[in-house]
C-alpha cells in the first residue's frame, strides 16, 4: 500500500466523508488525497441544509453519486446525526446500489485515511471497511 498517483480507477472502492462541519470533511478529504492521489473516487459533504453545522441527506446522496464505484462506496461519518442521515441516504438509494454501500464504524479522519489507502490497493468493500474499523479498538 504505497502512496501513488494513478488515474481514478472505477474498479477501486469509493470513499465518502460526512461530517457536521464542511471544514472537517474537506480537510479529511485533503488528507486522503495526499495519501492516495487520484487512485480512488472520493467525495465529501458537511453542514446542514441551508448552512450551519449538521448533515444533509441530499448532500450525502450526491456525494455517494460522485464517489460511485462498481466496487462500492465506504462512508465515514463523525457524530450520531451523520450516521443516522447516512443510513437514511443509503435507504433512499436505488435497490441495486444499496447493497454496495457501507457505513464504517470508525473515527472520521483516521478512518477515511485508512479506508482510502486500503481502497487504493484495489481491495474489496469488505476489506476497506474492516481496515477502517480496526481503528475502533485503538
Amino acid at each position, binding site marked *: 500500500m504505497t502512496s501513488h498517483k494513478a488515474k481514478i480507477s472505477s474498479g477501486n472502492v469509493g470513499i465518502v466523508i460526512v461530517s457536521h462541519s464542511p471544514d472537517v470533511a474537506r480537510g479529511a478529504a485533503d488528507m486522503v488525497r495526499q495519501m492516495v492521489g487520484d487512485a480512488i473516487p472520493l467525495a465529501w459533504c458537511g453542514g*446542514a*441544509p441551508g448552512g*450551519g453545522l449538521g448533515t*444533509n441527506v441530499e448532500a450525502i446522496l450526491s456525494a455517494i453519486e460522485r464517489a460511485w464505484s462498481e466496487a462500492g462506496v465506504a462512508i465515514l461519518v463523525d*457524530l*450520531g*446525526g451523520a450516521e443516522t442521515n447516512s*443510513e*437514511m441516504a443509503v435507504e433512499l438509494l436505488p435497490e441495486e446500489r444499496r447493497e454496495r454501500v457501507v457505513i464504517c464504524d470508525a473515527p472520521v479522519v483516521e478512518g477515511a485515511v485508512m479506508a482510502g489507502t486500503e481502497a487504493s490497493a484495489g481491495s474489496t468493500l469488505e476489506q476497506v471497511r474492516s481496515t477502517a474499523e480496526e481503528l475502533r479498538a485503538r
Partner: protein
Amino acid sequence: MQIDAELQHKLIGTVARCVIDHAEELTALDQAIGDGDHGINMKRGFDAVLADLDKTSALPVNEALKAVGMALVMKVGGASGPLYGTLFMTLGKAFPELPTRAGLAEAFSAAVDAVKMRGKSDVKMKTMLDVLVPVLETLRRSGGDLYAELRATAQWAAEATVPMQAVRGRASFLGARSVGHMDPGARSSWLMVEAVAGVLEGAQSMTGTDKDRAISR
C-alpha cells in the same frame, strides 16, 4: 369525522407551527444535554413542511404523511430528521383505509417500531421514544376522554425523561450529567401530540361526533 383536506391542512399546519413556536425552548433543552441544534433543526424541517402545506394537504392522507416525512428527512439536518421523517413516512405507509382507533393504533405502532430501528433505540434511553411508546399505549387502551388522555400521557412521559440518564444520542456523551434535564426529543414529541390532540378535539366538538366515531370515517 373524515380526515379531509381542510382537517389535514389544520393538523399539519398546527403541528408545524407548534414546533416552530417552541424552537428556542427546544434549543435551550438541547444546549443543556446535547449539541444545541434541536430547535434550529426542527424549525428548518417544519418551515419546509409549512412551505408545502397547501400542496401536501391536498394529497390523500397517506401520501401527505409521507411528504411531511420526506421534507423532515431532507431538511432537518440532524438525527431528528431521519427519526421524525421515519415516523411520518411509516405512519403514511401503514395508514389504514378506514381510520378507526384500532387501525390508527396499528399504524402508529408500526411507525414507532420503525423509529426504534432507525435510532437503534428503545424506551428508557431518554429519547423521543419515551413519549411515543406511552402515547401508543394510551391510543390502544384509552377508555375515556382520548384527547385529554393523550395530552396527559405525552406530558408525564416527557417529564419522566428528566431523571433518566441518556443512553443514545449526543446526550449519552454526558453520562450521569444528562440526568436532571428533559430530553429535547421527548419535548418535541410531546408538542406534536398536544397539537394533534388539540386539533382533533376541536374538529370533533365542531361536528358533534361522539368519541368513538371521532377518528373513524
